[in-house]
């Protein structure tokens, strides 16, 4: 008989194991983000031409570690916490196989530390991608493998919890939409980790001399099956969190369960094919493969993202209109709780992810247009829009919700927290736009020096490219300050925040379970949502404001897409 803690503020039931595991994963995520953010400062201040802080050797070391800590460790630790939340907490179900879940966490922790140690020992500055035949120290790969195995265990604990919840009938009807979205993320994660295993295990064996040769192109194709799909886990996860926040902040319900779930189904089918985005100007791969895969089979996963882009804010709009914010197209949005960081993080994330991350991703993932973008600094601009604003800022917003609910602490410095999403979002947006500009002028990514000092020949980027990289540097510094504010508020709250529960002590904040006495609640079966007549079947527009915003998105998309074709048409003919 499982026992739970009832959170009096949210009405959520927390299983003892799930609660501890969510905390430790979230804390490990925050530590990874701290490391990633400090490294980001070094990277950004080196790429800011007037500052040019680090010598090449440190720069490449910092960049390798920044990529792995920000893109892999921070996000996946946090996602494991989300998986446990979406299964155990939302379904009011005990966590399946908690010992396995702890083993998974231990492997992830050991793996993340091992890889970081390898990088900072200095012989593994191979970038996150570690393309063979460039070789890192064996424990660089070993750490990644351990981390991946741990994450895979986490995914199966999630699936196991779904099974337990169904068998023990902890909920009525179907699983909630948020849980369905988390399941989408877990499915993508399984493919991601399998691809990683297929390529990283042989690479590890090669690094210790057991295998003689790994084909560099084979490595690229399979590595990106992991490298890009891991970012697709993020898409599925942060879209789920968007839906969750719409429910938490506005009491919103999905505009249509069918449409939103079908959109997630399109992710399951097609999203992972986009790993081909990295292979578009590679030798030896046919255009048929490139076109089919880069377009997610006719852009069906893009269709899904465009649908979520309508239905997430649309569900917020419908909920706001029911509360009476019915005036004009946008009263619902003007009267949204802009000073609540849970909402503002999410909304900034939706806008930047859609308008910048999504559009740039599709444009540069077009087979031919990739020719004028591949490996320029436009590429990191794109994925900072998707991952640093899309995923990271969403997760930051969710953390503000979890501090009182999960960690049972009152948030400190609420004034700072209110500004944090804007600071981080504005800094990142500046970074992104200026890196996009510099990228269209040809500035290379992953380069320690854009002046080519020390080269036998000379080439000078346009003066505007230097200006843009400088402005990008300013944006990056703002974003790092915003990230620092997030960590100050969240970690500070765990340590100094007022205890909302007598047993929420210092150690408990960092994952030590509360005393058993705290877990005495026995939840009733999770009921279905109350039916509402006006939803779904109505023949009129329920969310006209969101629809107008969606049309603005579409127009921007079309215009920007064809501008890039026009630009492509102006370069040397190639065939």
């Amino acid at each position, binding site marked *: 008989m499982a026992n739970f803690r009832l959170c009096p503020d949210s009405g959520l039931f927390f299983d003892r194991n799930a609660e501890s595991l969510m905390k430790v994963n979230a804390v490990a995520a925050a530590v990874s983000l701290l490391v990633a953010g400090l490294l980001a400062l070094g990277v950004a201040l080196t790429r800011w031409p007037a500052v040019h802080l680090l010598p090449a050797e440190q720069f490449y070391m910092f960049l390798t570690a920044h990529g792995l800590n920000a893109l892999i460790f921070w996000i996946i630790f946090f996602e494991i916490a989300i998986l446990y939340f979406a299964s155990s907490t*939302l379904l009011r179900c005990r966590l399946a196989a908690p010992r396995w879940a702890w083993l998974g966490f231990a492997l992830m922790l050991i793996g993340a530390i091992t890889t970081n140690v390898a990088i900072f020992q200095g012989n593994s500055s191979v970038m996150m991608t570690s393309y063979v035949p460039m070789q890192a120290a064996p424990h660089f790969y070993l750490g990644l493998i351990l981390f991946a195995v741990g994450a895979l265990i986490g995914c199966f604990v999630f699936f196991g919890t779904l099974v337990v919840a169904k068998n023990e009938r902890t909920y009525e009807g179907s699983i909630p939409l948020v849980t369905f979205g988390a399941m989408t993320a877990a499915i993508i994660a399984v493919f991601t980790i399998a691809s990683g295993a297929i390529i990283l295990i042989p690479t590890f064996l090669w690094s210790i001399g057991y295998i003689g040769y790994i084909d*560099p192109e084979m490595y690229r194709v399979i590595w990106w099956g992991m490298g890009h799909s891991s970012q697709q886990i993020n898409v599925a996860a942060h879209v789920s969190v968007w839906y969750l926040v719409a429910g938490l902040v506005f009491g919103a319900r999905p505009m249509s369960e069918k*449409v939103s779930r079908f959109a997630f189904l399109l992710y399951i089918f097609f999203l992972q094919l986009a790993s081909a985005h990295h292979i578009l100007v590679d030798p030896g791969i046919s255009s048929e493969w490139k076109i089919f895969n880069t377009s997610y089979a006719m852009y069906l996963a893009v269709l899904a993202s465009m649908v979520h882009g309508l239905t997430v804010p649309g569900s917020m709009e419908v909920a706001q209109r029911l509360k009476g914010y019915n005036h004009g197209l946008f009263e619902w949005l003007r009267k949204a709780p802009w000073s609540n960081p849970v909402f503002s993080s999410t909304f900034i994330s939706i806008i930047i992810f859609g308008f910048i991350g999504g559009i740039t991703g599709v444009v540069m993932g077009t087979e031919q247009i990739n020719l*004028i973008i591949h490996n320029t600094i436009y590429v990191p601009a794109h994925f900072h829009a998707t991952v640093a604003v899309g995923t990271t800022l969403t997760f930051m917003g969710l953390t503000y919700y979890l501090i009182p609910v999960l960690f049972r602490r009152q948030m400190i410095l609420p004034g700072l927290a209110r500004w944090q999403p804007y600071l981080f979002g504005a800094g990142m947006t500046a970074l992104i736009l200026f890196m996009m500009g510099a990228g269209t002028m040809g500035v290379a990514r*992953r380069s320690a020096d854009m002046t080519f000092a020390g080269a036998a*020949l000379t080439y000078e980027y346009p003066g505007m490219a230097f200006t843009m990289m400088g402005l990008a540097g300013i944006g990056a510094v703002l974003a790092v300050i915003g990230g620092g504010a997030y960590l100050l508020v969240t970690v500070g709250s765990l340590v100094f925040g007022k205890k909302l529960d007598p047993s929420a002590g210092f150690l408990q904040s960092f994952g030590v379970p509360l005393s058993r006495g705290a877990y005495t609640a026995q939840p009733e079966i999770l009921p279905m949502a109350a039916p509402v007549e006006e939803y*779904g079947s109505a023949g009129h527009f329920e969310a006209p404001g969101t629809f107008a915003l969606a049309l603005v998105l579409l127009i921007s998309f079309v215009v920007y897409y064809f501008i890039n074709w026009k630009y492509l048409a102006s370069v040397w003919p190639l065939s």
Partner: protein
Amino acid sequence: MSTYLPPAQRIWWNVPMGREEIVWIGIALIWCLIMFFMMPYWHVYGKQNLSNEAYQTTPAKYGPKVQAMIDKYTVRTETDQQIPVVHPPAGSDIYMLARLWQWWPIMELEKGKSYRLHLSSMDWNHGFSLQPININMQVVPGYEMVLNITPDVAGTYGVVCNEYCGIGHSTMLGRIYVKE
């Protein structure tokens, strides 16, 4: 309150969609199909496509091809490193080699003429990034990529390496001249 609660209906699949969702899905689907068909369209009517002609090779096979071209068509050398500048005949196969941390040799091409440009790496991954027009290609060791290029603007072009290739990466710079 129901994004995180089970759906209100046991059979939610049969609940009709809202009007804007239907309209939006229709518009978005059309746009997705347009974007999809732009790529094959450009293969037929556009002028910037990859040939996708490629071969498996090795440094031992590729190096001598580059050297043969250098021996035959070198017109001068540049810099202290005596980098050869080759001026191959229009329409010929030209071979550029990437290695730590050089693009080798310098090419001198004629405007408006076509060449079959071969690219391969002797060691690690490199990135062929032709500046300032910003044409970018992945150069992978073990593979020889062939592109039919037609330089249509005269000038001096830089070949930047834009795939990380170790400590000297930012010094890896080559050059292509396009003459009237």
